[in-house]
C-alpha cells in the first residue's frame, strides 16, 4: 500500500485482537510437554508423561493408532472419491453439451449452498436400514457425497478458466473429447486438483459430527470422536492429556497448512461454507 498512512496503529490494533488466539495455540503446545504448579500459568517442569497415550492404550478407549489409521482411511478415501467424481462431473458441467445441462448446473449450485447437517437424521436412518451403520464405508460414502457439490463446483470453476482454444486445438489434432479431457485439460487443472485434494483431506480429517453419529463404535472410531469421548469422560479429567491427543491429532493439519497455505486460502475464499 502507499506510504500515506501509518501502519503501526493497524498492526497494534490487530495484534491486540489476535493475542487470545495466539495465547491459546502457544499454551496448546506448551502444556503438552510441561507441568505448571496449581494456580499458575507458568510451567515449572518439562515432561513427556502427557504423551503416554502413544505407547499405552487409555483404559476403555481404542488404541490411538487404530483411531489414527481409521482417520487416515476415512480422510484419504473421501478425498479420492471426491477428486475422481468431481473432476469428471465438473468437466462435464463446464464444457460438455448434454441434455438438461443448465438444470444440472442449477442443482449443483443449490446443493452447494444447501446445509448438509440438516440431513443427518435421515442419513442415520438410511445407514441403519441398509446395514452400513457403524462401518467406515458408510460414513466415507456419506462424507464424500456431502462434499461432492462443493468439489464439483470448485472444479467447474477451475475448468472454466482453461482456454477454449486449447480444447479446440486438441479436437483439430484429432483427439476425442475424452482424450481432450484426460490429456490436455486435466494437466492444466493439476493445481486445482491438488488444492481440492488437500481441502477434502483436511475436511475429512477434521470431520466430527458424521463419524460421531454414523460410526461411533470403538472399532471404527476416528480421532475426532476419540478425542471428544476422552474429553466428555468425567471420570478422567486431564487437560494436558486432552491437549496432547489434540496436538497429535492436529499435526498433519498444521503441516498441510504450512506447506499449502496459499492454495488453501484460494479454495476457502472460492467456497462459501462457513
Amino acid at each position, binding site marked *: *500500500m*502507499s506510504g500515506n*498512512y501509518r*501502519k503501526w496503529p*493497524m*498492526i497494534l490494533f*490487530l495484534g491486540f485482537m*489476535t493475542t487470545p488466539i495466539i495465547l*491459546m*495455540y502457544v499454551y496448546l503446545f506448551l502444556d503438552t510437554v510441561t507441568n505448571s504448579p496449581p494456580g499458575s*500459568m507458568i510451567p515449572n517442569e518439562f515432561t513427556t508423561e502427557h504423551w503416554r497415550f502413544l505407547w499405552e492404550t487409555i483404559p476403555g478407549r481404542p488404541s490411538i493408532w487404530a483411531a489414527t489409521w481409521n482417520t487416515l482411511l476415512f480422510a484419504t478415501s473421501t478425498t479420492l472419491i471426491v477428486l475422481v*467424481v468431481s473432476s469428471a*462431473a465438473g468437466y*462435464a458441467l463446464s*464444457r*460438455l*453439451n*448434454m*441434455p438438461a*445441462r443448465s438444470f444440472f*448446473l442449477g442443482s449443483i449450485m*443449490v*446443493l*452447494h*449452498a*444447501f*446445509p448438509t*447437517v*440438516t*440431513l*443427518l*437424521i*435421515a442419513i442415520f*436412518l*438410511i445407514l441403519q436400514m441398509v446395514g452400513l451403520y457403524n462401518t467406515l464405508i458408510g460414513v466415507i*460414502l456419506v462424507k*464424500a*457425497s*456431502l462434499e*461432492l457439490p462443493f468439489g464439483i463446483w470448485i472444479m467447474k470453476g477451475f475448468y472454466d478458466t482453461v482456454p477454449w482454444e486449447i480444447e*479446440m486445438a486438441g*479436437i483439430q489434432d484429432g483427439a476425442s473429447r475424452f482424450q481432450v479431457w484426460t490429456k490436455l485439460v486435466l494437466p492444466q487443472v493439476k493445481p486445482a486438483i491438488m488444492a481440492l485434494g488437500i481441502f477434502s483431506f*483436511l475436511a475429512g480429517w*477434521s470431520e*466430527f459430527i458424521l463419524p460421531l453419529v454414523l460410526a461411533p463404535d470403538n472399532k471404527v472410531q476416528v480421532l*475426532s470422536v476419540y*478425542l*471428544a469421548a476422552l*474429553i466428555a469422560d468425567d471420570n478422567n479429567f486431564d*487437560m494436558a492429556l*486432552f491437549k496432547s491427543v*489434540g496436538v497429535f*491429532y*492436529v499435526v498433519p*493439519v498444521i503441516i498441510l497448512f504450512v506447506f499449502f497455505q496459499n492454495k*488453501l*486460502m484460494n479454495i*476457502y475464499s472460492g467456497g*462459501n461454507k*462457513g
Partner: protein
Amino acid sequence: MGNSKHLGLYMLAPAFLFVIVFFLTPVLLTGVFGFTNMSTATGITGGSYMVSQSSMQALKDRHDLSEIAKKLSQVIYTIDEEGLNAAAQEGVDAGTLAELKAGFLGQSFQKRRAVERAIKSLDNRPSSTRAIKKLSALFERSVLNIRYDTEVDLFAAIDKFGLPLSVAEKTAMSDVTYTGWVFTTDNFKRMISLPDTMTTLINTLFYVFVTLIVFNTGFALVLAISTHYMDAASAGFFRSVWLLPRITPPVLYVLMWKWLAWDTGFLSTVLGPLGFEPRNWMLDTPANAWTFIILINGMVGASMGMLIFSSAIKAIPSSLFYASEVDGANRMQQVRHIILPQLRFPILFITSYQTLSLLTSFEYILLATEGGPGGATEVWALTTYLKALSNYAGALEYGYGAALALVLVVVGVFLSILYLKLFDFKTLTAPPKIE
C-alpha cells in the same frame, strides 16, 4: 460431436448417483420421517403386534373398548389339544389326559383355582398338589407380551384365546398393538404447542444475527481492511493466524476454549488473584455461555469473510487509492468511499451464505455447551440433534427430530434457490463453445 452429449452424461453419472443416494433421498426421507412417530421404541424398520399393558390402556382410552382390554390383559386356562399334547410329552398319565379331554376339551377357566378344581375332579387325578399345579400350568393361555409378526397371527391368537373380534374391534386392535412406527402429524402439533420451541427459535435467531453481524461480516471487514493497510508480511501473518480457527479441527478448537474457560483453566487462574472465584466461565451464566458461543463461532466465521473481502479489496485498482490520496482523503474517507462501495456484493454474498450455514450448524455449540446451561444456548439445529441422535437422552425420537430438521431443510431449500436467483445464475451457465 454427437458422442460428447453422451460423454457428458457418463462423466456426470457417478456424481449423480452419489447425490441421489446421499443427498436427495435424505431430503425426501426427512420429509417422510417427519410425519412418523419413529423412535428407539418403535424401531426403524417394520414393527410387530403385541398386546401389552400400554396398548390395552390405549385400547381403553382411544377406542373405548375397555371390556376387551380387560379380558386380553388376563391369563386364562383352556383345555385344548395343544396343552394335552404338551402334557403327554411331560409324561402325564395317559388316563388322566384322556379323561380330561373327554370331560373338558374346549372349556376355559378364568382362574387358576378353577382349572385346578377341574383337574382334581377327575377320577384319574395326579396324586400330588404339585403335579396338579404343574399340569394346570400347561393350559395357561395368554396373549399378553407376545410379539406377533402380522396382524393375522395376532387375531388368530386372540381367536384361540376365546375372544372373537368384530371387524371394527380388529381395526382398533391392530392400531393399538402395532409396535412399529406409523404416520402421524403429532410431531408438528407438538412442535407448535411446546413453549420450548419458541425459546429455541428465539435463541437461534439471536445466535445467527449476532454472530453474523458482529463477526462474520463486521469483524471480517475489520480484518480485511486493517490488513489491507499493512505491509505484506504483517498482513500475511494476521491472515494466517485468523485462518487457524477454521483449519483446526472443531473438537480441538473447542477444547482450547474450554481450557480458557474451565474452572482450572486460564481465566480462573489469571483472575483468581484479582478476587474472582474460580468457576467454569463458559457455563456459569447464560450470558457468559452466549458470549463464548458467539466468540467460538465468530472467530471461525470471520476468516471466511476476511478472505473474500481481502481478495475483493485487492481487485480494486491501486490507481483509485492513489487518486483518492492525492485528492486528500484520510484513511476513514478512503475506507468509506473507495473500499466499502466495492465490497457491497461480497458482503451480500457472505451474509446470505453464512446466514444459512449458521442457521443449521450446531457442531461448535454441541462441543462447547451442549446447549447448556439449562438449555439456554440450545438452537434449533442442536435441538434437532439432541432429540433424534444424542445418546445421553436414552430414547431417541427420530420422528420428532426429523420434523424439526424438516423445518431447516425447507428453509435451506428455499434460501439456496433464492441465492441461485440472487447471484446471477445465467453468467455461470454460458453454453459450451464446441458444438
